[in-house]
Structure formats: C-alpha cells, structure tokens
C-alpha cells in the first residue's frame, strides 16, 4: 500500500478534550437512580474456619437494605456459590472458611456509604484460626495445611488452558512442564555450569482508578453490570454461568478505565455486587477503598532457579529453569500466568536442551493475577541477570554473549516452532547503540559510579483467541466502530478509529467508537496480552473493508463499471476511469436506497489458531521482541541507584500511532523502574502491612530518568493490520535485569533479589569490601 493518511500519524486521543477538562466519565462518576452503596466485610485472619455469623443487628440499622452472608449463598436457587475463570475456587462470600486477610465474608447494601460502613461493624463473626501457608516453600512442605479440597472447572474453559489444573491433595494450583532435547547431556557437554536463584516480590498494579461495579436487575430478570473491567465478555460468561442465565440476559459495560495494567481482568467485585443487588432488589454499587484494592489482586511473587551450561566460547548448550509462583488464596488467572512464565523461562535464545518446570502455589495471601508482563517479567529477571553473570565469568561482552545465542528470525523456540516477524537482533543492537554501549560516562559526584546493562525479551500473546468488530457507515457518510476492546488509557478507541478512517477514506473526526458493551459490541476475548491492535485492529480493518466492498458494488451499478474499478476516496466513490463525477458516500446511499436512513454494516472477525493445517503448534499469534539498555548511577555511600538514561527498542510491526507506541514504551519503562528499585508488598505473617500509597512506593517525578529513548522497530507482521503488532508489555519486562546488570557494571555487586533497594546495594558493597579485606589479609599471611 502506498501513502497513508492517518495510519502512522501521532494523532491525539479522540477523547483528549474530555480528558483535560475533567469531563470524561469514569464509572464512579455516574450514579443510577435508586442506587444503594455496598461495603464488604473482610477476614481479619489468614486462614480460619467460620464458626458462626450473626448479621441480625446490622440488618436492623436504619438505611440498611440488605446484608449478604453465606446463609444467603448456600442453597440459593437463583445462583451458584462458586466461580473462577479457570478453577471455580472462589465464592461470592466466604462459605466454610476464609483463606487470606481481606477475604470477603459479608456485604452490606445501604442508602449511604456511611450507613453501610456502620452496619459492617455490627456483623458478628466467630472464627477458629487454622495454620496458614505463607509462602511457596511452605505451600510445598510435607503436611502443609491445604487451602482447597476438590475444585470444579467452569462449564467451558479457555481454549489455551485445557491442560492446566489443581493437583488434588496439594497446594499446587498448576504445574507447567516443558522439555526440549536432553538437558543432562547438554550439561555434560558444557565447559561451565552456572546455577542461581533469583527472587521477585509481590507487587501492586496501582491503577489510580479503583475497582467499581454496579449491578442492576430489571423486572424480567435481565442483569446489567457496569464494571471497571478490561474483559467484559469474560465477566458476562462467568456471571451468566453463576446466575443460570443465557448470555443474552447478562449485559456487561465498561467505560473508559483509569488504568488497568492487568488488574481489571476477570471477576473481582461483580459476583458479590450482583448477589447483593439480587437480595436488595435495587441497583447496588461498590467502589473499593485503596486498601481494599491492595487486598484484591497482586503481581505474583516468584522464586526462580536457573541452571545454565555454556561452552567456553559462549554458546548456551543447556538450561534448566524452575519458576515457583505464589498465587495467593485463589487461582484467578494464575494458571495461565504460570504457563506463560514457563514458556519463556529460558529466554529469547536458541538453546538445544531445555527443561522448564513452573509451579503455581496456593498460599494464604492476597490472590495474584495478571500483571503487565504476565509472569514473563519474573522469569526474565532471572535469565537476563544470569546472562551477565555468565558473560562476566567468561570475560565476554554481555552484548556479544546475547548476540551469539539470540533467537532471531526463523530461529527455533523451545517448543520447536519457528519464530517469525520478531526483529530481536535489530532491537538489541539499536538499544545498545542508543546508550553508547562500550563507553563509560562520568558520574555526577565522586562517591558515585556509572554503569550500563542490557536485557532482551520475548513474550507470547494469548493464542488462540477471537476478536470481532462491526463498522457501520451512517447515512451521512460518517462511520461508527463497535469494538469490545476496553480503552484504559492505551488509546485503543483512537487506533481503531484510525484504522477505519484509513480503510474507508473518512476523516478521523467523523469516526465514532463504541467500546465494551456486551449487548452492542461483538465478542472480544480480552483487552490484555497486548493483543488488541493486532487482533481487534485487524477485525476493524476487515469490517471496514466489508463496508468498502458494499460501497463499491453499489457504485459499480450506478457507474456501470465493475466493482473493482470503483475507487473510494475523500469520503466518496468515483469510477477509476473518471467516466462519471464522484459521489459522496452520503449521496451514494441516498441514490441507492432512494430514502434517507439506510446505512451499511461491515463485519470482521479474527480468530487465531494454536495448530496450523500442517500440524505445527503455534504458541503465539505474534511474538513480542524487544531489548532494553540502561545506564545507571550508583552512589557508593548511600546505595541509591538512579537510572540516568534508558533505551527500549521494540518490534512493533508497524507504528499505527507513534505517539501511543512511545507512550507505551516510556510508561512501561517507568513502571519497570518502580518494580526494579522500590515496589514490593510486605507481609507480616499473613497480614499485608503496606496496602496504601504512603507505604507502597511508586515511581514519582524525581525517580524518572532524564531520558527514556523509545525505539520503534517496524518489521511488518503479515497478519497484523498494516503490519502492526502489540507492544503494551514490552518495556516493563526487561527493566529490572537491565538495571541490575548496569548496577554490577557500575560497582561490581550482583543483586539477585528485587527490588534493588539502597539497603541491598549497600550491604552487597560492604560484603564485597569485607571479602576484599579478607583476601588481602590472607595473601599477606601466606
């Protein structure tokens, strides 16, 4: 295709003006008439049996309309008790026992939030405490207390997850295993063996908009749920199963979200709010407090063991990985996280012998789920850190070691399939060049030292999956795009409009976008996995082309030419040979139908497959390829690490909106820096002790580097719209290892536990100093 009009342009978001004037409505900004306010009573214990619940006093408080406890849920004919996207291990409220501090036990709906709050204090619950499982090691211990007995699966699970599941009688929520070649043989043939353990703590997404959900039943029993949700179709499916309804009787609507980053996927508040509305017979809304957000979902804490065998010239011959992920009290989407974390645990390298085991473990802590990077940032932290340890031991340039082993175009992934449309080498070379790899710059102060570090990444997108779109050409020649993709800030509405505008030759300001309403927009699996541009973007392109074809056929009859000879341009049609004057879409529709009010509807569906016709397995519909290069300054006196300069190169296929691409890369980097240097959830026993922004540190203006250089590599993907692929998670994944590698380059210490706090750096520096003294003393003695 030749020159584009809006594709490749950094157009601002369609809703920009609403966003800078405070007019854009987030869910909590809207109030339904008659809305009741819901509050949730939560468990104070990590693991306990519920002996008795008495809600009598709470029910009597004026203003309280409904109190929901297990007594309402058990044996209720209107709905089931259990739900869960992969394993039905969650309940609307706790039934027989609570499994973490924060587990919902009861809920109140009242005429004001203050009354609801007061009522909660009147609910009496007697518990019998049980021994708790507090980390993944304890979860695997012999005779460990069990969190769950037998777990049911949903009626229809996800296509990519038929093989996952709980190991009965244990706390193993899922075990993923992958092997290629013969690792033992690989290790025998290796000249050097490296074994390390790396840890990555639980963290919080910290979307500034909280979780909200509003549920309302109409008199016929139709249920409408407004929710801060990235994947409304999954919620519809879960709620329809839970409430015994066909999909047509459940409507889920998501407005614009104030950030998601993976937190707003899968059921959170919806089952409880719907059950509360069912009992109250009035619409009920719940918006969580900040502390409750921290008690709802986290990023998986991980312990990663990596053993690597290399030849003396730096070829990786074998790699064995074991990833233990702490998934908290409920499975949520954890099994998929463990699978994804497992697939890429050996890194973006061509390695002949690989053995990977990824264990997902139940503990009595806040559930962990999807977090931008989806398990890959944890395994990447391990293998990319170890790459530099290996390079150092072999006295090799870390860039050279990576180049030598990198999985590039046509290379064989651990699953045996060939990777294509992934410009790994180009990303690595460009990121390194952007920080002037191989040179050293001067620190700002004498006590500081500067260093540089690299990290590469590969990640898969969810496969197989489906996205459908509709494009409606309105009777005036403008168009409306219907997509189930939720815009949470990434700019999907705008990109979808750009695609429709480009295909239909309609100015961008005449394109409207309707998103994420399961009654209006066709099916989309999810807004996650950085999949929307590739999947939904392509579906919109197909839908727009469907409209173009209809227009061409209509015009062909009028112009007396073949449809292929009709040219669409400037919101109108003309015969290619200019034998007739051009007609606007508006005039064409009027002429064709003879009456105002006719519009055209185009459809597009993208379905990706996990097995090709030739039987070849497809792990991912497209691959994220990228590389980061960090330059840091480490203060030897304080242990403080400051990221000075940072380059992130991503293969985006084609940058449909370069500004948005760069925002994803800069933004992902900044969150990555937060996770690398400061963010961690801290537990005392089973109690999360920093569930707020005062005690949980997030990157602020003073923590952001002077320069983040986004590098957009465009190796077109044959199936992406205009060649485009996703990039939402690319930047976050390599940040921590790139920074840790730069820290070692600067001051010679290796940090293996995240976050890289000043305390950890200082103690590593002290230890190094002591070893040096010991060595020199020993050498003097001898």
């Amino acid at each position: 295709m030749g020159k584009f009009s809006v594709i490749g342009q950094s157009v601002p978001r369609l809703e920009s003006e609403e966003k800078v004037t405070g007019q854009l409505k987030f869910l909590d900004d809207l109030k339904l008439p008659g809305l009741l306010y819901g509050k949730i009573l939560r468990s104070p214990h990590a693991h306990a049996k519920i002996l008795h619940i008495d809600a009598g006093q709470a029910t009597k408080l004026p203003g309280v309309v409904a109190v929901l406890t297990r007594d309402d849920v058990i044996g209720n004919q209107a709905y089931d008790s259990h739900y869960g996207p992969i394993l039905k291990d969650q309940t609307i409220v706790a039934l027989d026992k609570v499994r973490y501090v924060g587990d919902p036990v009861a809920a109140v709906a009242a005429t004001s939030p203050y009354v609801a709050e007061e009522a909660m204090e009147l609910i009496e619950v007697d518990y019998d405490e049980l021994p708790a499982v507090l980390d993944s090691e304890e979860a695997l211990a012999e005779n460990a207390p069990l969190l769950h007995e037998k777990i049911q699966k949903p009626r229809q699970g996800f296509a990519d997850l038929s093989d996952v599941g709980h190991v009965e009688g244990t706390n193993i929520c899922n075990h993923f295993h992958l092997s290629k070649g013969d690792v033992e043989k690989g290790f025998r043939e290796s000249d050097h063996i490296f074994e390390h353990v790396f840890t990555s703590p639980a963290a919080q997404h910290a979307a500034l908009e909280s979780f909200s959900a509003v549920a309302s039943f109409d008199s016929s029993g139709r249920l409408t749920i407004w929710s801060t949700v990235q994947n409304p179709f999954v919620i519809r499916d879960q709620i329809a199963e839970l409430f015994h309804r066909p999909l047509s009787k459940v409507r889920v609507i998501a407005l614009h979200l104030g950030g998601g980053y993976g937190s707003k996927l899968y059921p959170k508040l919806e089952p409880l709010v719907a059950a509360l509305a069912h009992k109250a017979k009035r619409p009920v809304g719940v918006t969580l407090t900040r502390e409750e957000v921290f008690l709802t979902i986290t990023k998986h804490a991980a312990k990663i063991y990596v053993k690597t065998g290399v030849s003396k010239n730096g070829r990786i011959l074998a790699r064995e990985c074991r990833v233990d992920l702490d998934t908290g009290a409920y499975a949520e989407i954890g099994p998929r996280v463990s699978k994804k974390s497992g697939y890429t645990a050996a890194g973006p390298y061509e390695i002949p012998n690989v053995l990977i085991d990824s264990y997902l473990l139940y503990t009595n802590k806040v559930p962990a789920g999807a977090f931008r990077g989806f398990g890959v940032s944890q395994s990447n932290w391990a293998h990319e850190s170890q790459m530099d340890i290996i390079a150092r031991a072999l006295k090799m340039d870390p860039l050279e070691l990576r180049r030598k082993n990198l999985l590039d175009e046509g290379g064989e992934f651990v699953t045996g399939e060939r990777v294509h449309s992934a410009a790994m080498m180009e990303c690595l070379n460009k990121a390194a060049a952007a920080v002037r790899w191989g040179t050293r710059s001067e620190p700002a102060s004498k006590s500081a030292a500067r260093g540089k570090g690299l990290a590469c990444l590969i990640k898969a997108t969810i496969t197989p999956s489906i996205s459908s779109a509709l494009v409606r050409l309105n009777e005036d020649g403008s168009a409306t795009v219907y997509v189930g993709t939720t815009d949470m800030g990434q700019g999907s509405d705008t990109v979808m409009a750009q695609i429709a505008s480009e295909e239909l030759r309609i100015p961008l300001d005449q394109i409207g976008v309707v998103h994420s309403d399961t009654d209006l927009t066709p099916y989309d699996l999810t807004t996650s996995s950085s999949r929307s541009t590739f999947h939904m973007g392509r579906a919109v392109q197909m839908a727009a082309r469907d409209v173009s074809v209809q227009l061409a056929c209509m015009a062909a009859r009028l112009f007396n030419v073949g449809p292929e000879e009709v040219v669409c341009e400037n919101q109108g049609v003309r015969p290619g040979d200019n034998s007739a004057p051009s007609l606007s879409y508006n005039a064409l529709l009027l002429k064709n139908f003879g009456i105002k009010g006719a519009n055209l509807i185009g459809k597009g569906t993208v379905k990706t497959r996990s097995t090709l016709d030739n039987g070849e397995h497809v792990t991912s519909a497209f691959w994220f390829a990228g590389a980061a290069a960090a330059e840091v300054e480490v203060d030897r006196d304080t242990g403080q690490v400051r990221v000075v300069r940072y380059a992130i190169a991503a293969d985006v296929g084609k940058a449909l909106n370069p500004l948005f691409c760069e925002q994803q890369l800069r933004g992902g980097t900044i969150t990555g820096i937060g996770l690398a240097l400061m963010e961690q959830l801290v537990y005392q026993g089973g109690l999360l002790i920093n569930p707020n922004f005062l005690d949980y540190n997030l990157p602020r203006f003073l923590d952001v580097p002077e320069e983040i250089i986004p590098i957009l590599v465009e190796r077109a993907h044959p199936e992406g719209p205009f060649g485009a692929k996703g990039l939402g998670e690319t930047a976050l994944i390599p940040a921590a290892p790139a920074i840790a590698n730069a820290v070692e380059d600067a001051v010679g210490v290796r940090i293996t536990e995240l976050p890289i706090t000043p305390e950890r750096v200082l103690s590593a520096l002290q230890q190094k100093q002591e070893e040096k003294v010991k060595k020199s003393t020993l050498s003097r003695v001898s």
Partner: protein
Amino acid sequence: MKRAIQVTVNGGVHELSVEPRETLLEILRGPVGLTGTKLGCDQQVCGSCTVLMNGLPVSSCSVLGVDAAGNEVLTIEGLATDGELHPIQKAFIEHGAFQCAYCTSGLILAVKALLDQLPAPEEGQIRHFLAGNICRCGCHLEILQAVRSLLQQSQQRKEA
C-alpha cells in the same frame, strides 16, 4: 449534625449543608456535581484530587468541607474559559501528557500552581513541585515536556 457552609467553586457561590466528616472532594463530587476531581489514595499522597484553594494546591480528599467554608476553590472544570481550553490543557494534549488521564485533573492544577508561583522554574524545581502527583501510566516525561513548552511560550511572550 449538618452544618451550613458557603464555598465558592470556579467563581460560583454554593450554599451547602454538609456533615462535618464530609471532605471537600466528596462535596465537589456530590452536591456541587463536579466529578472531574478524582479520588486516588485518600491519603494526600497521590495528587489525583488536587484542587486549588485560594490559589494554592490542596488534596481535596484530606480537606474537610467545613474547613473549605468561605474559601475559593478552583477545579479542573473551571480552567477553560468560554469553551477555550487553558494553555496548560492545550499543552497536555499537544505533548501527549496523559494516557488514562485519571491523574490529569490533579496534574494540570498542580502545574498551574507551579507556574503561578514560579515564573521560571528549573528542571529540578519542576520535578520537586510535581512529585506529589502520581501518574501510573508513566507520562512523566511528556508532562515535563508540556511544562517546558509553556515556559517557552511565556518566555517568548516576555521577549515580544
């Protein structure tokens, strides 16, 4: 016990009856009907709920309504005049200074307070001043770029 207060919001006087425990944020979003100011941390540390009270930035989540009585409050809704965006709002759009924009109302008002107080801030001063506002999408560098462009504009105006 409700109390009668008078507060000026974006130039309009509001006579309200509020509970002593109600925060300025709750009053703005509730009876005043302006939802552009957002609740983030509820702890005065994220800046989402920033408004200007008598020209100074405050976290409206941590100011009681009764303490706002008699004061002048400027919220994001009061910034554009006669449908014309304020230069800060224009700069935010031009430099891509937001993604989800949940933090944007607070940040724009924080930037206004900064530029009102310091006509020519250094980079470090800008970062310090805005350090109380969290942007989780990570648009910090774009926001700084927007602020620099505003400083350039005012510099050019001075020279002209």
